[in-house]
């Protein structure tokens, strides 16, 4: 193999954390977490497919303190990955590449996700949800 002795580029640990890199790493962590979340999501939805007893058991699992804690994490991850995904879309269109813009939009993503997660859970826990 021609590629066996090629040097690896410097990895994460040699760099000081910056807004750009931290926001990017959280994006990936949230994405992977959400994909693990689909396992739980599938459990919940297929329980509904099995009928009332299975569904209400799944609802109880989701409503337990551990279930709610995990849902809280997924809520944040979903808002974050969506918001930062839109940021990536803007870059795909060639927009917002200046360092000031990149740092500003990165902080906006973090702020948006925290605020929306808080709002969502305020609505959820106060029992005034939609539909």
């Amino acid at each position, binding site marked *: 193999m*021609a590629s066996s002795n090629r040097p690896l580029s410097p990895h994460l640990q040699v760099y000081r954390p910056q807004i750009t890199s931290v926001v990017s790493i959280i994006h*990936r962590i949230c*994405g*992977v977490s*959400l*994909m693990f979340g*689909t*396992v739980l*999501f*599938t459990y919940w*939805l*297929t*329980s*509904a*497919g*099995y*009928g*009332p007893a299975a*569904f*209400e058991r799944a*609802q109880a699992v*989701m*409503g337990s303190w551990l279930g709610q804690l995990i849902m809280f994490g997924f*809520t944040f991850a*979903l*808002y974050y990955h*969506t918001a930062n*995904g*839109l940021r*990536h*879309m803007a870059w*795909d269109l060639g927009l917002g590449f200046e360092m000031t813009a990149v740092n500003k939009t990165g902080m906006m993503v973090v702020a948006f996700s925290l605020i929306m997660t808080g709002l*969502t859970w305020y*609505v*959820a826990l106060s029992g005034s*949800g*939609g*539909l």
Partner: protein
Amino acid sequence: MDMRSHLGRARGPGSTDNGVEHWISERFSAIALAPLSLWFIYSALGFAGADYATFQAWQSQPGNVILMILFLLAMFQHGQLGLTVVFEDYIQPVWLKNISVAIVKYTALLFCVACIFSVLRVAFTA
């Protein structure tokens, strides 16, 4: 026209020629997921802790069935594409990388089909 010599092509694997398709599919599923995710969070607020009848009443409305199936398709497509990239980045042994990617793709397919079946069953037994 391929400018590389035969030897150069044989030695270096080079492009797999399917990167663009992956990239485009990731973007399109992302565009679909942005509004669908917000719709799902809003909807989930309504059936958090609800009994089966409440969920079934919601899940059997045609609009909700259609949006839920679209959400599932976009979600599993986007998720398996993303996790494939992560595995390709971090798993070094080629055989383990390929097996992991295959497991992710087929598990996503299995979960997606199971979820769609459940949505339809809930909707059509209402």
